[in-house]
């Protein structure tokens, strides 16, 4: 749990340092917002001391790569593997676009 918190804190730091990539062109943030409703059942809106990160804090490239790694099984959490397998490229791009938008609104990069 401590390690997970540290990872979240590090990612949040990276995000705020402006390393997040630009919004992917093909993603539809409105579709992403709808899809993100699925995420908010588990992912908190802001930083907590839990083990599940707020998604808007994750850098866009990291977010996309993590979902792809869950799809292939490279990342191990079975909840996220099932979530990721139900998402196509369009869905992942739209989610990424939405969370990037959300990060901008919250004053991130």
């Amino acid at each position, binding site marked *: *749990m401590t390690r997970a918190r540290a990872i979240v804190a590090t990612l949040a730091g990276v995000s705020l340092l402006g390393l997040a990539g630009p919004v992917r062109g093909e993603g539809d*943030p*409105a*579709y992403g*917002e*709808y*899809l993100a*409703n*699925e995420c*908010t*059942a*588990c*992912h*908190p*809106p802001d930083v*907590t001391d*839990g*083990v*599940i990160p707020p998604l808007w804090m994750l850098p866009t490239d990291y977010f996309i790569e993590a979902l792809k790694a869950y799809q292939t099984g490279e990342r191990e959490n*079975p*909840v996220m*593997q*099932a*979530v990721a*397998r*139900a998402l196509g490229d369009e869905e992942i791009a739209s989610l990424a676009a939405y969370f990037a*938008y*959300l990060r901008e*609104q*919250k004053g991130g990069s």
Partner: protein
Amino acid sequence: MSRLTRRGLLGTTAVLGVGLVAAPHVLRAQTRPKVVVIGGGAGGATVAKYVARDSKGAIEVALVEPKETYTTCFYSNLYLAGWRSLESITHRYVNLVEKYGVIHYRDMAVDVDTGKKVVRLASGRELPYDKLVVAPGIDFRFDTIEGYDEAASMDMPHAYQAGEQTALLRTQLEAMEDGGTVVIAPPPNPYRCPPGPYERTSLIANYLKKTKPKSKILVCDSKDKFSKQALFQDAWQRYYDGMIEWIPGELGGRVVKVDTKAMTVTLEGGDVIKASVANIIPAQKAGWIAHRAGLANDSGWCPIDPDSMASTVAQDVYVLGDASIASKMPKSGFAANSQAKVVAMDIRHQLLGDKRFPARYRNTCWSSVADNDAVKVGASYKAGETQIEVVDKFISQVDEPPEVRAQTRAEADAWYDSITQDMFA
């Protein structure tokens, strides 16, 4: 982000929606469409919040819920274990009212006229609606166990509608002497939270092992198999060996009669068990108002359109959560929360012309089995032609290492915090 920006993002194109956002409040109040939500549980609270928040005041949302607070049935087993306080699983509607403008009627819906599109409340007030969401949760079939009715539940609590009943069961467990027998009677399918009675068995055992280790738990089941069975039975053996006995329906485990004065439970197989504490969870059906409104079929539950959760019986009415027939989706707080988001999108599409996307549903159920051990099961779903269908699913494995189980246990707490924020914050 600002609320106005958020609404812009949703791609509202309807003249009605855009016009109303800019209109003076008074004008809006006179003309904006009305949504009435019956029931302030996991599904009802979520749909009320999402419609009010994402329509940014363009839709009037009324929540009909007599109670001031909502105690979640999910996580109430952790209270029974002594891990959580009742307060920590109890939530208020104040954010829905103050942040999103939901009107909370602390009143009981006693009738629905789906022809005239009006909900009548116990106070006599009538609430007209453009769209109605019925999310009443469950009621019990008190005619299925001889001697077990609502009055009997004060001696032998079901504790399957969280709050007073849960507190009563905990008080009885605390008062029980070491060496006592706890009877747990899980209901027949379908019912709220399929792993719930078995997580409860695990966590009551967890409490008893620490405080009254000579005690026994008899699980008197009407079924021959149950959710996460291998995972639970493995945990029972590893953590509570000899404390728990499960009697399946095929071995006569079904409870057919109770006597609350003698504190006895009679099983179908003929055994009469003297219980120190009896947790009798009867068969279930959709909440009363769903029947009153004519939304339920012969099964006792409400048929819905898998793409929208709209009732297939009445127009402009949605049924979500435990009361609905969501086919492969279990009756759970997570499922109700997921379904509510599809309903909220469909309502905004119908009333404001907002974008509509294909329905997607999800469920995940975490079950705690010991202090640092939890298991999970879940799935993604889509709308099929006639029912909600599974896209992908997973379940924890029996031979997972302890660190994975400990991580799942921590994940469950994080999930609880997030989903209750998603519903009530």
